[in-house]
Each structure stands twice: as C-alpha cells, then as structure tokens.
C-alpha cells in the first residue's frame, strides 16, 4: 500500500482508534502518524473524544417524573382512552358546496332533490333522468372501487373469494369464530387484545 497522505489518515482515524482497520491499512496509518505531528495531534484528540464520551455517566430519571407517570397510569386504568373526537373537516366545506349546487340545480331547472328554501326529501325513487350523468358515473366507479378494495383486502387476509364468501362471513358472524376457520386457508395467529377472546382452534 502506498504511503497515505494526511487527508486519508484523518478519514480513517476513528476506525484506527477503534481497531477497526485491516492490518495493512492500520500499519499505513501508524506509519504516517509516526512522521506527522499534526496528524499525531489529531489522533490524540480522537482518543480524547472517545475516552471522554465513554466517561459520561448514565443518568436516572428524576423521581418526580416517575411519580407522575405512575399517577397518570393509576388514573387511566379506570378510564379507557376516548376515541379522538373530530368533526370531519369536509362537513363545513360540503355545506358551502351544497349551497352552490343548490343554486346551480335550481338555475339549471334541474333541482331533483333540492330547492332554495328548504331541503326536500328525495322523491320516492331517485330521478335518474334528472341526475347529472357524470356524477352518477363517477359515483358508480367509486362504488365499484370500494368493493374492489373489499375483495382485495379479503384476499390478502387469506379469505378465499368464492361464491360462498358471503355465506362464510355470515356463518362466522352468527356462530362465532370457530366456523370462520373453515374458510381461512392457514391459521392466522393474532395477538389477543384486551377482552378479546383467543381464537378457538377446535
């Protein structure tokens, strides 16, 4: 190995100090250090850094912190965390969109469901003829997409998507988990949650 220059040595100093360099390279570094005061000083610094870091003490959490933790834990044992209550942000947005569409519907002479002064209940059957075909087409696509996802996830869960998927699900729901196993190709060990009965493998 050709002799190393200062920059190369400085690159490898930490590894050298840790003994992580292979023999050849370590020897080359050592050789350079012998003849170079600057790098020799850096090597001392590298060793000091390591030594001082290792000398820093581990620290215990202040007792007050732990006391507070246990206090809160004590409270929470009897009060399960609530579901995060949030108003869906789109509600406000939708209402203004509704207002806009009400206007549009009335102006266009359509207004299947809507009138300016009050919300009308939709007629007994939806009036497909008066609905915006684009909207309906989009909604149809969305509905298909939703069911496609149902199918996809069911497959991923190992449920065979068969004609009797429906039957299997129905059976599972009314007679407990035992029969659910009929359509799971492999056992799927799941971690039991609070209060959740362990899967019956009989």
């Amino acid at each position, binding site marked *: 190995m050709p002799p190393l220059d200062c920059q190369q040595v400085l690159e490898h100093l930490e590894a050298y100090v840790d003994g992580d360099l292979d023999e050849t390279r370590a020897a080359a570094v050592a050789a350079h250090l012998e003849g170079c005061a600057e790098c020799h000083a850096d090597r001392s610094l590298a060793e000091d850094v390591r030594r001082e870091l290792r000398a820093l003490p581990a620290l215990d959490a202040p007792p007050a912190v732990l006391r507070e933790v246990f206090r809160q834990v004590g409270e929470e044992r009897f009060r399960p965390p609530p579901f995060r209550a949030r108003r869906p942000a789109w509600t406000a947005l*939708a209402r203004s969109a509704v207002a806009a*569409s009400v206007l549009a519907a009335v102006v266009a002479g359509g207004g299947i*469901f809507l009138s300016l002064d009050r919300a009308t209940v*939709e007629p007994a*059957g939806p009036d497909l003829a008066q609905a915006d075909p684009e909207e309906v087409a989009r909604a149809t696509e*969305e509905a298909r997409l939703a069911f496609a996802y*149902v199918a996809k996830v069911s497959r991923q869960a190992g449920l065979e998507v068969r004609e009797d*998927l429906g039957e299997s699900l129905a059976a599972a729901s009314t007679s407990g*988990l035992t029969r659910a196993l009929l359509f799971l190709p492999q056992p799927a060990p799941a971690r039991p949650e609070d209060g959740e009965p362990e899967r019956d493998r009989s």
Partner: protein
Amino acid sequence: MQRRILIIALLLSIPVPALAADEEPSPKDHPGYFPLEEIGILDEEQLTLEVNLHAPMLKLVAAATRKADPDFSQLVEGLRSVRVRIASLEGLDPVRVRSDVTRAGRWLRERGWQTIVRTRDGGEQIHIYLREIDGDIVGLTILAVEDGGEATAINIAGPIDLTRLGSLARKLDIPLLEEAVPKKPTESEKEP
C-alpha cells in the same frame, strides 16, 4: 416515494346527501356506520384516496346499473353509505399506527361489532368486522395496515347481502383496482 393522489370527487358526491340528510336520518346514526375520519392515521393530509357515498347517490348508482349489472345494482340499492379512506403511513411511527388500529377495534367491539378476521403477517395487519342485528348484516368495516406503506379503511353501512358481495368480489374487476392505484414500489432491502 411519490404517490399519485387520487382524491375522488369529494365535493361532487357530498352535496346531495349532505342536504338531503336534513330530512333523511343522518348516516352516522346508522348502526353499521363507522367514522373512518376519526382514526388518526387516516388524517386528511395523508389521504391518497377517499370515497364517500351516501344513500341518495347510492340509489342513483343502483338505478343506473340496474340493467347492465343487476347483481351490483342490488348490492348497492339499500346501502346507507359506502366509504373508503386510504392513507400513506410513510414516516408515521408504526407504534402509533398499531395503537390507532387497536383503538378502532375497541370502539367497534364496544358497540357490538364482531371481529371476523384479525391477521398479522409480517408488517401487515388486516381486521374485518361485521355488525349484525337480528340476523341481518348491517355493517362491514375493514382496516388493513401495512407498516411504512399504507392504511386502507372501508366502511359499508346498510343491509349488506353478503352472498351477493361474495359473488361480486369474485368477479370484480381487479384490473380496475390496479389502474386506480399506483404500483407498490419494490420493498427496500431488509437489513441483515
């Protein structure tokens, strides 16, 4: 990783049900309803796909597809709502993700939903719940979560004909799904 954002016509599909909801019972009161938006990890900002369909529009969909696809039409006909949220979990702490999923499950079980499927396979969890009243299935909720990938949540409220759902699922256009969603990038190499 960039994902194509596919936010489907949120505004367009809302107006009808939101106003009609003044007269119709609120979809949220339906026993099969589950508030997907309250699951923290399905925050608006992280959504890559959202579907929000309610009864009036679903009736229109049913009417529009009655001739061409009667099975689909009948399945959709009586539904109160069909909702989907898909969110990216990139950068989210998997612990928090698991915690949100657990709480959702608890919420459902406290309200009488039954767990039908709960699997965990590597970094992927899938939970499927059904709400049943007097022998009828009135709600289906699915939560699928992939560590570092995405979370999919589906809630269908209304009388669900599971047999029809099953047969539909079997012949559903899976290509439809593959077109709509960008291909998953290959898994980054796992560390030794």
